[in-house]
C-alpha cells in the first residue's frame, strides 16, 4: 500500500492528530507530539458543538445552508493563554458550492465569538482544516469564500488555517500556514511527525479512535472494525473472568461500548453510535448466541441484551476458553443495516432523530 493513500483516510488522520496531542518523549516518540509540546491538551473528540441560542436561531433563520450542530474531529486547549484549536480532517478539498460547505460554515461560526461563550475560559479559537498537502490551496480558497459570505450575512465567523499531510521520502510531514504560525507564534512552517515509513508496512500508530468505517486500503478493509471487535472481546473477557457462578451477567451493545471506550462512545454522533451498536450486536453478540444457544442454556440474546449465566464451573471454563481462544473468529465485515435481532427500541428510534453530517 502506498502511504500517500493513507493520508486521505479520515480515521488515520484523526488518529495521527490525537497522537500529536499525546504526551511522549522528545526523542524516540511514536508520533512527534507537536501539539503537546506547544502546550495544548485534549478537550474533546468528535463532540458536536452547541451554539448559543441567539446564534442557533440566527442559523436556523438564515437563507444560507449552515450546519447547526457541527462536529469537529477534536478540540485542543491551552491553559497559559486560553487559546484553542478546532480540527476538521478531510480526505479532499471541496468548493464553496459543495454539500460540505454547510458543515464548513458551521465550523467557521463555532470558532467565532461563540466559542469563548460556550467553552469559557477558552478565549480564542482557530479552525484547522487538515487534508493531503496538495489540496491545501483549493481548501484555503473555499474557506475564504465562505468566510466572506458569512460576514455578508452579518454573522461572525472565526479565523481558519489549513494544514497539510505529505509523504516525503520515509517521513510523514505535517505543514501549516502563516495564520497558524502567527497564532502560535512559532518560527517553523512544517515538521516531520512520523518516520521510517515504508511501502510494505502500514505506518499507523495504535488506534485511539473507535470506528466502524472501511479502511482506505481495500486490502485492510475490515481493520478498524477488527480493532473495535477485539477491544469488545477483551472487555468481555476482563468482565467475565471475575463473574461468579449462578449470577446473571447481562450487557447491551451500548453498555459494552461505553465500557470499552471509557465513555467516549456517548459523545459520538448518533449515526456512528447506531453503526457501532449494530457492529457489536451482529458481529459479537449474535456470534456468541449462535455458537452457544444449543450448548449452554444460560447464554441468550434477547431484545439486544446478551445474557450469560453459568451454574457449573465447567460451563464457565468452556465459555471463557472459547472466547479466549485465538482460533475463535469474529467476522469483521460491515454488518447489514438491518439485523434480525435489532429490535425497534434499540436503533430505530435513534435512527428517526438522527442528524448527521
Amino acid at each position, binding site marked *: 500500500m502506498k502511504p500517500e493513500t493513507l493520508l486521505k483516510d479520515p480515521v488515520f488522520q484523526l488518529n495521527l492528530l490525537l497522537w500529536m496531542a499525546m504526551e511522549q518523549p522528545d526523542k524516540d516518540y511514536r508520533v512527534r507530539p507537536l501539539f503537546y509540546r506547544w502546550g495544548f491538551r*485534549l*478537550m474533546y473528540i468528535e463532540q458536536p458543538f452547541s451554539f448559543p441560542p441567539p446564534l442557533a436561531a440566527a442559523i436556523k433563520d438564515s437563507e444560507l445552508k449552515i450546519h447547526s450542530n457541527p462536529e469537529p474531529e477534536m478540540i485542543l486547549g491551552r491553559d497559559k493563554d486560553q487559546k484553542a484549536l478546532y480540527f476538521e480532517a478531510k480526505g479532499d478539498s471541496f468548493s464553496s458550492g459543495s454539500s460540505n460547505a454547510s458543515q464548513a460554515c458551521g465550523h467557521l461560526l463555532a470558532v467565532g465569538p461563540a466559542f469563548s461563550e460556550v467553552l469559557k475560559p477558552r478565549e480564542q479559537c482557530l479552525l484547522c482544516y487538515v487534508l493531503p498537502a496538495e489540496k491545501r490551496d483549493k481548501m484555503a480558497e473555499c474557506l475564504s469564500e465562505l468566510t466572506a459570505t458569512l460576514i455578508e450575512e452579518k454573522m461572525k465567523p472565526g479565523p481558519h488555517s489549513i494544514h497539510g499531510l505529505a509523504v516525503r521520502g520515509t517521513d510523514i510531514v505535517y505543514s501549516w500556514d502563516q495564520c497558524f504560525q502567527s497564532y502560535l507564534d512559532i518560527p517553523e512552517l512544517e515538521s516531520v511527525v512520523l518516520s521510517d515509513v*515504508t511501502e510494505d508496512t502500514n505506518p499507523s500508530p*495504535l488506534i485511539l479512535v473507535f470506528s466502524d468505517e472501511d479502511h482506505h486500503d481495500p486490502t485492510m478493509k475490515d481493520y478498524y472494525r477488527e480493532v473495535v471487535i*477485539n*477491544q469488545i472481546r477483551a472487555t468481555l473477557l476482563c468482565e467475565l473472568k471475575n463473574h461468579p457462578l449462578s449470577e446473571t451477567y447481562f450487557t447491551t451493545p451500548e453498555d459494552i461500548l461505553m465500557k470499552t471506550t471509557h465513555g467516549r462512545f456517548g459523545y459520538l454522533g448518533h449515526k456512528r453510535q447506531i453503526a457501532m451498536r449494530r457492529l457489536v450486536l451482529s458481529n459479537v453478540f449474535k456470534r456468541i448466541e449462535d455458537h452457544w444457544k444449543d450448548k449452554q442454556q444460560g447464554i441468550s440474546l434477547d431484545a439486544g441484551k446478551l445474557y450469560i449465566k453459568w451454574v457449573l464451573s465447567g460451563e464457565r471454563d468452556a465459555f471463557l476458553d472459547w472466547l479466549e481462544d485465538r482460533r475463535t473468529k469474529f467476522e469483521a465485515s460491515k454488518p447489514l443495516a438491518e439485523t434480525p435481532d435489532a429490535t425497534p427500541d434499540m436503533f430505530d428510534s435513534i435512527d428517526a432523530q438522527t442528524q448527521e453530517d
Partner: protein
Amino acid sequence: MQTLSPPHIQDRFDVYRFYNGLSVEGKEGLDKRRTRIPLVKSFLLEHIDNKRNDGRQKTPEEIFRTLVPEIRRIDDTFTEIRDDVKDTESKTISRQTTGFLEVLDNRFFAYYTCEASIPAKRRVGRWVQSPDLDHTWFSSPLLQALWNGDVSKRGDDRFGKLIFSHESIFDMPDDSATNDSEDEDSEETNTEESDEENHNEEKVEFERRKARFEMKDRVGKIKQSLQTLQENYAPLYALYGLRLPSFSGRGGHDLWQNGQITNRTDCFEAHRNTVNYLYKIYKAILDNTEEAAWPGTQSKQAFHMGTRGAPLIMKFDEPLSEAIFNRWVQRAFQKKNPFKLWGVPISLGRTKVHVYGADRHLWQPINLEITASGMVAILPQGTCGNTIHRLVANVQHYVSPKIEAWVGGTPYTEIVKQASEVPYEA
C-alpha cells in the same frame, strides 16, 4: 519435616523471635559456607484493586481464604497462613503454618516464611495466579537505580552481589519456545542457599542467547568496572538480583526481580526493615508511574473528555530478527507465557503487529504495538501501574537486554530513580 513456625503464637513478636533464631542459625551456616536450614525470606506482593460485586475492595482475609485452607489473625495487620505442605522425604502431605502475612497498606502485603526456596516460590507463584495478587516487579532499571542510588554508597569495602539474567527464549526452534520454568525455580536456590553446581550434561541445550552472571565482590570493585562491562555486553543491563548489604553487620538482603527478599543476616528485624524500605520505594515508584501514565486525570476528568493514558514506549538497543519477532508475537499471547498477555495480533507488516487485548494476569485491557525495534503499550486509566513494570522486566529478561523506555514523556529511569530518594529507616 522442618518446623516452619513457633509453637503457641501469642503475638507477632513470637514469630520475630522464632525467625531471629533461624536467622542466626542460617547465618552461622552461611559463614561456614553451608546452610543447614532454609533462610528466612519475604515476598512483597501487590494487592490488585479488583472490586467485589458490591464495589468494595476485597480484604486480605477474603483473598487468602480462597487461596489457602486456613488463616488466623494474630493482630490487625499480621496473619498466620496455614497450607498443605509436602514432606520431601516421606512424600506425605500435612497442613501446617507456612508463613505470616503482614498487611503493609491496602495495596501491599509482605509474606514472611522460612520454607525452602522452591516450595515457597511455588506456593507464592500459585497465589499470584489469582487476579487479586501480583508480584512486585523490581525491573532491571529499578534494581540498577537501587544500586546507583543506595547500595553502591554503602561502603566500598562491603561485599555486594549483582545477578544478571537474560534468556532470549524466542530465539530458538518453534517447538521449544517456552522458558525453562524449572531453571527459573531453581535459579535463586542455586545462588541463594547452595553453592553446588547444577550442571546436567545430558540436558538438551538449544543454541540461543542465554546469559546469567553473578558478580560478587567488594562494592568499590564492582563500581569501578560495572559501567564498562555493561557498555561492552548488553545482557549486563538485565539486572535480575541485587544484594543490599546490612547496616548492622555482615551479610545482607538479596532482592530478586519478582519481589522476593532473602535474609542473609542474623537479624529478622533488620530484614523486616529492609522489606519495609523496599515496599516504600516500590509504592512511591508505582505512584510515579501512574501519575506519568494517567496524569491529573482526577481533577480534569469532567472537562477533558479525551483519550486517557500516556503510552509506555520501549525501544530495543538492537532490532530483533524477523524470525525472533515472529516467534515472540506467536508465543507472547499464549496461556503459558511469562508475558501473561491475551490478544489476537493484527499484522500491519512483516515486523509490525497491533494487539488490542488484555493483561491476562489482571484481566485488564491493554493495547500494544510490537515491532522489531520496540514496543508501545497503552493502558486505560485506572488499570494498574504494576503491568508497566512487569512488561519492562520481562522484555529485558526475555527479549532485549538493553532497552530505553518512557512513560509518556518521562524516562522510565527517572521514574525509578525515586529508589534512591526514599530514606532508610533502620
